[in-house]
């Protein structure tokens, strides 16, 4: 899906990535003493850039609701304290920062309608795991400056690698979830299909009599229109096998129809002022793109999917996708029906880990 799309890169992704990389690099422990002000400044710029990217990047307007406020608050807290955690010189403080990261993530879980998971994470992570960490930190306390806390291994390379990965992830997310150019293409095609009279800018001027045999060039506006349609089609097209037993027949047929309509516009309709053909072709393009877009973002389902002969295929209904309100009982039902074996294995794993931890940490006593 990504290979075919040629929409421009959203450069707002650069600000959070570059500023964040600088901030983390600057704040990582090193033998040089650095004033923390610059690191904090770069970190603030990066946070603001990330917020701007989240607000504008995915093409949907964020409503000004309490949910949005809580989302930005919790994720900001999580990111800030995660940075403080990985850059801290004092392991005990890092562990406490991690506790705050876990609590903020729990807030996000609550926003995502997962109250049981939120409670479990608070109890197990913030309660048990971090307290164990603090015990170990206490048991292995070191006096004075130590190599472990005041030096880092290859901070330049690690920061570059990490933030290149982050940029790739953010750009990938944007390419997958940003439907703006498809939407505008659909609107454009629909406006042409609905227009009583086609705007003269789209139509090639008829050649004078003596040039009758030569090919007629397209106008600039028409070429732009066709390019926009091709980009949008590339965005919704999936590189799928095109054999006869392809299960996504609708899909393939739609793509072919749109391609034929674009070719028809290019070869005939715009050049020969065929308003009827322009209307039908644009109608086909708009309808096909809308249908393909709904298939891609999951708001519609395939109609003629071939069911397997081994029984009914589970389908997700067409209605609004909602989680059950009784979260705990629903999770319990899922765990003990779909994941029964997995949960038994997880229990066994916990038991084995307990035995192993005791066996490892046991102090060998000399019996003499």
């Amino acid at each position, binding site marked *: 899906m990504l290979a075919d799309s040629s929409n421009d890169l959203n450069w707002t992704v650069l600000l959070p990535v570059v500023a964040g990389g600088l901030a983390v690099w600057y704040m990582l422990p090193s033998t040089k003493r650095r004033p923390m002000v610059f690191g904090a400044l770069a970190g603030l710029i990066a946070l603001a850039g990330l917020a701007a990217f989240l607000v504008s990047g995915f093409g949907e307007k964020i409503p000004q609701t309490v949910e949005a406020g809580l989302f930005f608050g919790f994720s900001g807290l999580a990111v800030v304290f995660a940075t403080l955690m990985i850059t801290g010189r004092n392991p005990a403080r890092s562990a406490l920062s991690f506790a705050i990261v876990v609590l903020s993530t729990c807030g996000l879980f609550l926003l995502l309608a997962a109250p049981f998971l939120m409670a479990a994470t608070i109890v197990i992570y913030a309660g048990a795991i971090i307290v164990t960490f603090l015990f170990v930190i206490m048991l292995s306390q070191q006096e004075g400056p130590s*190599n472990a806390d*005041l030096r880092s291994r290859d901070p330049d390379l690690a920061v570059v690698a990490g933030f290149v990965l982050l940029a790739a992830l953010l750009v990938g997310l944007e390419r997958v979830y940003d439907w703006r150019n498809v939407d505008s293409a659909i609107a454009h095609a629909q406006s042409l299909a609905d227009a009583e009279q086609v705007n003269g800018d789209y139509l090639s001027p008829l050649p004078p009599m003596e040039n009758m045999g030569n090919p007629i060039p397209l106008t600039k506006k028409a070429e732009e229109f066709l390019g926009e349609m091709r980009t949008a089609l590339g965005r919704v097209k999936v590189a799928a096998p095109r054999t006869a037993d392809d299960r996504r027949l609708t899909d393939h047929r739609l793509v072919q129809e749109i391609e034929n309509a674009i070719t028809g516009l290019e070869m005939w309709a715009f050049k020969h002022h065929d308003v009827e053909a322009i209307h039908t072709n644009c109608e086909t393009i708009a309808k096909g793109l809308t249908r393909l877009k709904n298939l891609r973002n999951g708001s519609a389902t395939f109609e003629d999917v071939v069911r397997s002969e081994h029984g009914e295929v589970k389908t997700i209904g067409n209605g609004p996708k909602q989680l059950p309100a009784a979260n705990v009982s629903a999770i319990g039902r899922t765990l003990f029906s779909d994941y029964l074996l997995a949960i038994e294995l997880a229990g066994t794993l916990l038991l084995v880990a307990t035995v192993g931890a005791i066996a490892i940490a046991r102090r060998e006593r000399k019996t003499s």
Partner: protein
Amino acid sequence: MISLPHYLAVGAVLFVLGLIGFLTRRNLILMFLSAELMLQGVALNFVAFSRAHGNLHGQVFALFIIAVAACEAGIALAMFLMLYRKKRSLDISLWQALRDPGVEETRDTVPLPAEPKEEPLPVLATSGIEPARKERDYA
């Protein structure tokens, strides 16, 4: 409503920060905390997908992540205690004899900066006559 990609982006940021922490820090405990931070980012992704698809499988996966993280924490912390008893330090570079063949040894050439000297506590100047001390008072 905040849509799926926003949560995925936050999860990606947490994951990348954890990755950087794991690669750069030399304290065993910090490295382990960074790994847990990566797991948090992944769990956030799972829960966000669970919400987007309208079923609970993502949340179940996040629960399994928590279970595995608890096992990891138990075992790893026990191992850290053993390692600390052997070398009296949590520095991972002390164990670099275990590295792959062909990898260069890490040598710390630049000395660590000196600890900033703490200001001595203020001492009151003696004035007046010192009272006579009697040994038996302390007995």
